[in-house]
């Protein structure tokens, strides 16, 4: 992609030039190794048979008969990790999909109402949104727990829904967590959409208004189709944030059948007989796989999300 830009560099020929480039690339590769080694070590260890794991060369692939001390290759840690984290993975999926879609959709609507349609005082409302991005969540935890456990009778209100197939009693906690993540994800979603909507041409909206299009119609017919690239950015960002969260899950779900994958990962691979590192690393990778996959596939969009 960026290869083209290196052409004008080639005209620059000083005496120290090749050496400088070599030092530059060596540094870049060394830094890449710094970021990749913990993950690489994790992958190699996760593919080692726990009973043959010695910990001597955690960073080498497990090739026991060929290379002694590296352990035997085995997919067993991954199988065990998927078995042990299975319920958590399902719960995380139940949580993350609706919460991502809801926060993205509401964020887009809020940004539209606070940007494209223009009225006095909208900046003040918007500032309260932006401030919400920077809140340390500790400042709302105790009220949140009170709210979901003692104020809103969600647990009992949820009972009738459990007659539906696949719906379990403990799912009410996931509903609470979906609403919570939607609310706290809204500020950043609104910010991202607003930055996008400010760049849209005013003439187009003005023309649609003069043609008599309602605010609702402008949103559905003009803004929403133009928001598709931003929805991708927002969905990727929110998916990663919600999938990776531990704090809200810990304080709202607390424990039990509704636990999400990050909660289950915390205690994985620790038993009285010691730490099972292959299982632990496999578990960490299983829990990280959805976000890693999203990142590798849509890295550019993720970078766009974090930079905003």
């Amino acid at each position, binding site marked *: *992609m*960026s290869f083209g830009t*290196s052409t*004008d560099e080639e005209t620059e020929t000083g005496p120290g030039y090749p050496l400088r480039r070599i030092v530059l690339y060596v540094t870049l590769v060394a830094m890449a190794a710094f970021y990749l*080694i*913990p*993950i690489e*070590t*994790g992958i190699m260890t996760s593919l080692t048979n726990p009973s043959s794991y010695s*910990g*001597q060369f*955690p*960073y080498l692939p497990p090739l026991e008969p060929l290379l002694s001390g590296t352990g035997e290759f085995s997919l067993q840690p991954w199988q065990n990790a998927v078995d042990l984290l299975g319920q958590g993975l399902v719960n995380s999926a139940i949580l993350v999909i609706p919460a991502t879609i809801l926060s993205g959709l*509401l*964020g887009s*609507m809020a940004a539209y*109402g606070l940007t494209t*349609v*223009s*009225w006095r*005082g*909208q*900046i003040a409302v918007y*500032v*309260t*949104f*932006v401030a919400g*991005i*920077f809140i*340390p969540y500790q400042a709302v*935890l*105790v*009220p*949140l727990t*009170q709210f979901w456990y*003692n104020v809103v009778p969600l647990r009992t209100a949820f009972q009738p829904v459990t007659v539906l197939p696949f719906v379990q009693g403990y799912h009410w906690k996931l509903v609470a967590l979906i609403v919570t993540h*939607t*609310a*706290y994800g*809204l500020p950043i979603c609104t910010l991202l959409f607003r*930055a996008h909507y*400010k*760049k849209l041409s*005013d003439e187009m909206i003005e023309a649609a208004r003069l043609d008599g299009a309602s*605010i609702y119609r402008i949103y559905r017919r003009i803004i929403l189709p133009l928001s598709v690239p931003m929805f991708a950015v927002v969905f990727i960002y929110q998916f990663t944030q919600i*999938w*990776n969260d*531990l704090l809200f899950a810990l*304080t709202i779900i607390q424990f039990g059948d509704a636990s999400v994958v*990050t909660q289950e*990962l*915390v205690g994985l691979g620790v038993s009285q007989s010691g730490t099972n590192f292959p299982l632990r*690393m496999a578990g*960490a990778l299983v829990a*990280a796989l959805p976000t890693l996959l*999203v990142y*590798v596939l849509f*890295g550019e969009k993720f970078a766009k999300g*974090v*930079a905003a």
Partner: protein
Amino acid sequence: MRNPLQILQRRLPGRRETRTDGGTASASTADGGESFLSRDSVRSAPFWLPPTLLIGVFVYGAIGWNVLLSLTDFTGLGTPDYGSLDFENYVVAFQGGTPSWSELTVDPIWNSLGNTVVLVVGFAAVCLALGLLLAILVDQEIRFENTFRTIYLLPMSLSFVVTAKFWLYMYNPQTGLINIALGAVGIGPVEIVQNPDLKLAAIAFALVWQFSGYAMVVYLAGLRAIPDSHFEAARVDGASTVKMYWRVIIPQLRTATVSALVVLTVFALKAFDFLFSMYGYQPGPSADILATRMVREAYSNGNWAYGSAIAVVLFLMALAIVSPYIYSQYKRGAL
């Protein structure tokens, strides 16, 4: 020659671009809609009101409720009693002592407050320095730029819990890579994760690993926004590369530094997930930060009101850092 660069700039997260564009756009629409003001705000209410209510209840309502809870004596099970409100929890938080809701002495928060400041400052400083260095390196018109950028930002897509698992392993005295590397140069196995002298540094280092890529992205966008003529002028004047960056380029990255600093600080204040994954509720006195102390007091010890009081202190710290930033953004018309 200009063209590929411009394309590249557009493809990168362009902070500068958004701001200048946005400023004019909002100004012109504000003039245009003057006569329909009241009607537009009402008619667009279905769009902005539900999200605003959600944020109003969950963010601001909850913060207010938290302040109220911090004035009660709420502990254990049951419901809080809002009948007798006082500042006892704050006195205890700053002076220690035995509060009326407990028979035990409660430690003040100075220790965790100090750790929080050390962690935030150390982490943010190293992160910014490393991020700037990486951004300058990546900005040298290198090959495989996208690949390098993708790798540097990769850890940021991971959960704190996953990062903690990886680094617990890296730091392990017997099987960890850090100790294997130290052993290769003749330094015996060092206990890192449970070592009171190294804990905080180990946490900060792992967080730098996770977030320095973010600082790089922000700085890279800042560097790409500086006109080429500034680089060329410095070159013509015969400035060395180091001098050029130090005197001409880095001073222009102030905005990027401030915004990266604010976000990194907020990340560090949220480092609870990471510490919890490493130490559970008990990181020990040398690594206890306000975030872990608050959750431990509330969810492990059942001292809900005291936890709320600590949360208020944490909130005020975040506010002190963030509100000048938001205000300056507002003044510049960047919101």
